[in-house]
Protein backbone atom coordinates (compact mmCIF):
# COMPACT_ATOMS: atom_id res chain seq x y z
CA UNK A 1 0.00 0.00 0.00
CA UNK A 2 1.14 3.50 -0.72
CA UNK A 3 1.74 5.71 2.30
CA UNK A 4 2.89 9.26 2.96
CA UNK A 5 4.59 10.18 6.22
CA UNK A 6 5.21 13.63 7.64
CA UNK A 7 7.25 13.23 10.80
CA UNK A 8 7.03 16.83 11.99
CA UNK A 9 3.58 17.66 13.43
CA UNK A 10 4.66 21.27 14.06
CA UNK A 11 7.45 23.56 12.89
CA UNK A 12 8.33 27.14 13.62
CA UNK A 13 10.42 29.63 11.67
CA UNK A 14 11.45 33.23 12.10
CA UNK A 15 10.21 35.65 9.48
CA UNK A 16 12.70 35.96 6.56
CA UNK A 17 14.44 32.74 7.54
CA UNK A 18 14.40 29.37 5.75
CA UNK A 19 12.56 26.26 6.89
CA UNK A 20 12.43 22.71 5.54
CA UNK A 21 9.43 20.41 5.95
CA UNK A 22 10.04 16.67 5.64
CA UNK A 23 8.04 14.05 3.79
CA UNK A 24 8.71 10.42 3.00
CA UNK A 25 6.55 8.05 1.02
CA UNK A 26 6.34 4.41 0.15
CA UNK A 27 5.38 3.02 -3.24
CA UNK A 28 6.34 0.28 -5.65
CA UNK A 29 5.38 2.43 -8.64
CA UNK A 30 7.97 4.16 -10.81
CA UNK A 31 5.67 6.74 -12.39
CA UNK A 32 3.91 9.07 -9.97
CA UNK A 33 3.48 12.65 -8.82
CA UNK A 34 4.26 14.32 -5.54
CA UNK A 35 2.70 17.49 -4.21
CA UNK A 36 2.85 19.97 -1.39
CA UNK A 37 -0.45 21.60 -0.48
CA UNK A 38 -0.99 24.50 1.91
CA UNK A 39 -4.14 24.73 4.02
CA UNK A 40 -4.73 28.08 5.76
CA UNK A 41 -7.49 28.51 8.38
CA UNK A 42 -9.96 29.07 5.53
CA UNK A 43 -9.69 25.28 4.97
CA UNK A 44 -9.16 25.69 1.22
CA UNK A 45 -6.25 23.54 0.05
CA UNK A 46 -3.85 25.40 -2.23
CA UNK A 47 -1.26 23.68 -4.40
CA UNK A 48 2.21 24.94 -3.55
CA UNK A 49 4.40 22.80 -5.77
CA UNK A 50 4.30 19.62 -7.85
CA UNK A 51 7.03 17.13 -8.80
CA UNK A 52 6.88 14.48 -11.50
CA UNK A 53 8.80 11.37 -10.48
CA UNK A 54 10.45 10.85 -13.86
CA UNK A 55 11.98 14.33 -13.74
CA UNK A 56 15.30 14.43 -11.91
CA UNK A 57 15.32 18.21 -11.62
CA UNK A 58 13.82 19.52 -8.41
CA UNK A 59 10.72 21.67 -8.86
CA UNK A 60 10.80 25.31 -7.77
CA UNK A 61 8.08 27.94 -7.44
CA UNK A 62 9.43 31.31 -6.35
CA UNK A 63 10.37 30.95 -2.65
CA UNK A 64 9.33 27.30 -2.57
CA UNK A 65 11.55 24.45 -3.71
CA UNK A 66 11.73 20.73 -3.14
CA UNK A 67 14.49 18.23 -2.55
CA UNK A 68 13.30 15.10 -4.35
CA UNK A 69 15.32 11.99 -3.57
CA UNK A 70 13.64 9.19 -5.54
CA UNK A 71 15.82 6.35 -4.31
CA UNK A 72 15.32 7.41 -0.70
CA UNK A 73 11.61 8.16 -1.34
CA UNK A 74 12.00 11.53 0.22
CA UNK A 75 10.31 14.78 -0.83
CA UNK A 76 11.08 17.77 1.41
CA UNK A 77 9.79 21.32 0.96
CA UNK A 78 12.07 24.30 1.52
CA UNK A 79 10.51 27.71 2.13
CA UNK A 80 12.97 30.57 1.75
CA UNK A 81 12.50 34.09 3.08
CA UNK A 82 9.52 32.96 5.16
CA UNK A 83 6.60 35.37 5.36
CA UNK A 84 3.79 35.68 7.89
CA UNK A 85 1.36 34.54 5.21
CA UNK A 86 3.18 31.22 4.95
CA UNK A 87 1.76 30.16 8.32
CA UNK A 88 -0.59 27.24 7.62
CA UNK A 89 -0.87 23.46 7.60
CA UNK A 90 1.27 21.89 4.91
CA UNK A 91 0.37 18.53 3.45
CA UNK A 92 2.55 16.27 1.36
CA UNK A 93 0.64 14.14 -1.14
CA UNK A 94 1.30 11.31 -3.58
CA UNK A 95 -0.57 10.31 -6.70
CA UNK A 96 0.09 7.32 -8.95
CA UNK A 97 -0.02 8.08 -12.64
CA UNK A 98 -2.60 5.68 -14.05
CA UNK A 99 -3.64 6.80 -17.51
CA UNK A 100 -4.60 10.31 -16.49
CA UNK A 101 -6.41 9.38 -13.30
CA UNK A 102 -5.20 11.28 -10.31
CA UNK A 103 -8.25 10.64 -8.20
CA UNK A 104 -6.56 8.79 -5.44
CA UNK A 105 -4.30 11.45 -3.95
CA UNK A 106 -2.78 10.07 -0.74
CA UNK A 107 -2.02 12.67 1.89
CA UNK A 108 0.26 12.79 4.90
CA UNK A 109 -1.07 13.99 8.25
CA UNK A 110 0.34 17.45 7.79
CA UNK A 111 2.82 19.82 9.42
CA UNK A 112 1.63 22.96 11.14
CA UNK A 113 4.00 25.82 10.29
CA UNK A 114 4.15 28.91 12.48
CA UNK A 115 6.00 32.04 11.38
CA UNK A 116 7.31 34.34 14.10
CA UNK A 117 7.58 38.07 13.38
Amino acid at each position, binding site marked *: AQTVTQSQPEMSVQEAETVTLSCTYDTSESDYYLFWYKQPPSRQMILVIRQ*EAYKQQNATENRFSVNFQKAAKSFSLKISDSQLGDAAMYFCAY*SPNYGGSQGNLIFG*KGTKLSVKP
Partner: protein
Amino acid sequence: GAGVSQSPSNKVTEKGKDVELRCDPISGHTALYWYRQRLGQGLEFLIYFQGNSAPDKSGLPSDRFSAERTGESVSTLTIQRTQQEDSAVYLCASSFLFGRTNEKLFFGSGTQLSVL
Protein backbone atom coordinates in the same frame (compact mmCIF):
# COMPACT_ATOMS: atom_id res chain seq x y z
CA GLY B 1 -18.22 30.49 -10.72
CA ALA B 2 -14.66 31.51 -10.10
CA GLY B 3 -13.84 28.62 -7.80
CA VAL B 4 -15.15 25.40 -6.31
CA SER B 5 -18.18 26.17 -4.18
CA GLN B 6 -19.38 23.97 -1.33
CA SER B 7 -22.52 24.24 0.74
CA PRO B 8 -23.34 24.39 3.50
CA SER B 9 -20.19 25.74 5.06
CA ASN B 10 -21.14 24.20 8.40
CA LYS B 11 -23.71 21.55 9.25
CA VAL B 12 -24.76 20.35 12.67
CA THR B 13 -26.96 17.28 12.78
CA GLU B 14 -28.21 14.70 15.22
CA LYS B 15 -26.97 11.15 15.21
CA GLY B 16 -29.10 8.99 12.92
CA LYS B 17 -30.16 11.79 10.58
CA ASP B 18 -29.28 11.91 6.89
CA VAL B 19 -27.25 14.81 5.46
CA GLU B 20 -26.53 16.05 1.96
CA LEU B 21 -23.44 18.03 1.09
CA ARG B 22 -23.18 19.93 -2.16
CA CYS B 23 -20.25 20.71 -4.43
CA ASP B 24 -20.27 23.06 -7.41
CA PRO B 25 -17.07 22.50 -9.41
CA ILE B 26 -15.34 24.99 -11.65
CA SER B 27 -17.14 25.20 -14.98
CA GLY B 28 -15.54 22.93 -17.57
CA HIS B 29 -13.73 20.74 -15.08
CA THR B 30 -14.32 17.13 -15.99
CA ALA B 31 -13.03 15.56 -12.79
CA LEU B 32 -14.51 15.92 -9.32
CA TYR B 33 -13.26 14.49 -6.02
CA TRP B 34 -14.56 14.19 -2.49
CA TYR B 35 -12.22 13.96 0.49
CA ARG B 36 -12.79 13.71 4.22
CA GLN B 37 -10.53 15.43 6.73
CA ARG B 38 -10.87 14.40 10.36
CA LEU B 39 -9.57 16.73 13.05
CA GLY B 40 -5.78 16.84 13.00
CA GLN B 41 -5.54 14.40 10.12
CA GLY B 42 -4.71 14.48 6.45
CA LEU B 43 -7.27 14.05 3.70
CA GLU B 44 -8.90 10.69 3.06
CA PHE B 45 -10.02 10.01 -0.49
CA LEU B 46 -13.71 9.14 -0.74
CA ILE B 47 -14.85 9.14 -4.37
CA TYR B 48 -13.81 10.40 -7.80
CA PHE B 49 -15.91 11.27 -10.85
CA GLN B 50 -14.41 11.67 -14.33
CA GLY B 51 -16.75 12.69 -17.11
CA ASN B 52 -19.28 9.98 -17.90
CA SER B 53 -17.09 7.14 -16.65
CA ALA B 54 -18.14 4.99 -13.72
CA PRO B 55 -17.01 6.73 -10.51
CA ASP B 56 -14.16 5.38 -8.42
CA LYS B 57 -15.91 4.65 -5.11
CA SER B 58 -13.02 2.79 -3.54
CA GLY B 59 -12.61 5.30 -0.71
CA LEU B 60 -16.18 5.31 0.60
CA PRO B 61 -15.97 4.02 4.21
CA SER B 62 -19.36 2.32 4.36
CA ASP B 63 -22.63 1.85 2.47
CA ARG B 64 -24.04 4.81 4.41
CA PHE B 65 -21.99 7.03 2.12
CA SER B 66 -23.00 7.71 -1.47
CA ALA B 67 -22.39 10.42 -4.05
CA GLU B 68 -23.91 11.49 -7.30
CA ARG B 69 -22.86 13.78 -10.08
CA THR B 70 -24.95 14.80 -13.06
CA GLY B 71 -22.77 15.15 -16.12
CA GLU B 72 -19.94 17.55 -15.40
CA SER B 73 -21.85 19.70 -12.97
CA VAL B 74 -22.93 19.65 -9.35
CA SER B 75 -22.21 16.72 -7.07
CA THR B 76 -23.92 15.75 -3.83
CA LEU B 77 -22.42 13.59 -1.11
CA THR B 78 -25.05 11.89 1.03
CA ILE B 79 -24.41 10.36 4.43
CA GLN B 80 -27.27 8.28 5.78
CA ARG B 81 -27.89 7.55 9.46
CA THR B 82 -25.00 9.76 10.52
CA GLN B 83 -22.71 8.63 13.33
CA GLN B 84 -20.46 10.71 15.56
CA GLU B 85 -17.38 9.37 13.78
CA ASP B 86 -18.66 11.01 10.58
CA SER B 87 -17.84 14.40 12.10
CA ALA B 88 -15.18 15.93 9.85
CA VAL B 89 -14.56 18.49 7.15
CA TYR B 90 -15.68 17.23 3.76
CA LEU B 91 -13.67 18.77 0.96
CA CYS B 92 -14.50 18.78 -2.72
CA ALA B 93 -12.02 19.40 -5.53
CA SER B 94 -12.22 19.60 -9.30
CA SER B 95 -9.74 19.53 -12.12
CA PHE B 96 -9.48 19.42 -15.88
CA LEU B 97 -7.85 16.23 -17.09
CA PHE B 98 -6.17 16.31 -20.46
CA GLY B 99 -4.74 13.01 -21.63
CA ARG B 100 -2.29 11.69 -19.07
CA THR B 101 -1.45 15.08 -17.69
CA ASN B 102 -1.86 15.25 -13.95
CA GLU B 103 -3.67 18.53 -13.68
CA LYS B 104 -3.89 20.78 -10.67
CA LEU B 105 -6.73 20.17 -8.22
CA PHE B 106 -8.78 23.18 -7.14
CA PHE B 107 -10.35 22.73 -3.71
CA GLY B 108 -13.43 24.23 -2.14
CA SER B 109 -13.47 25.48 1.45
CA GLY B 110 -15.24 22.38 2.66
CA THR B 111 -18.26 21.58 4.79
CA GLN B 112 -17.65 21.16 8.51
CA LEU B 113 -20.01 18.39 9.60
CA SER B 114 -20.70 17.95 13.31
CA VAL B 115 -22.79 14.99 14.43
CA LEU B 116 -24.12 15.36 17.96
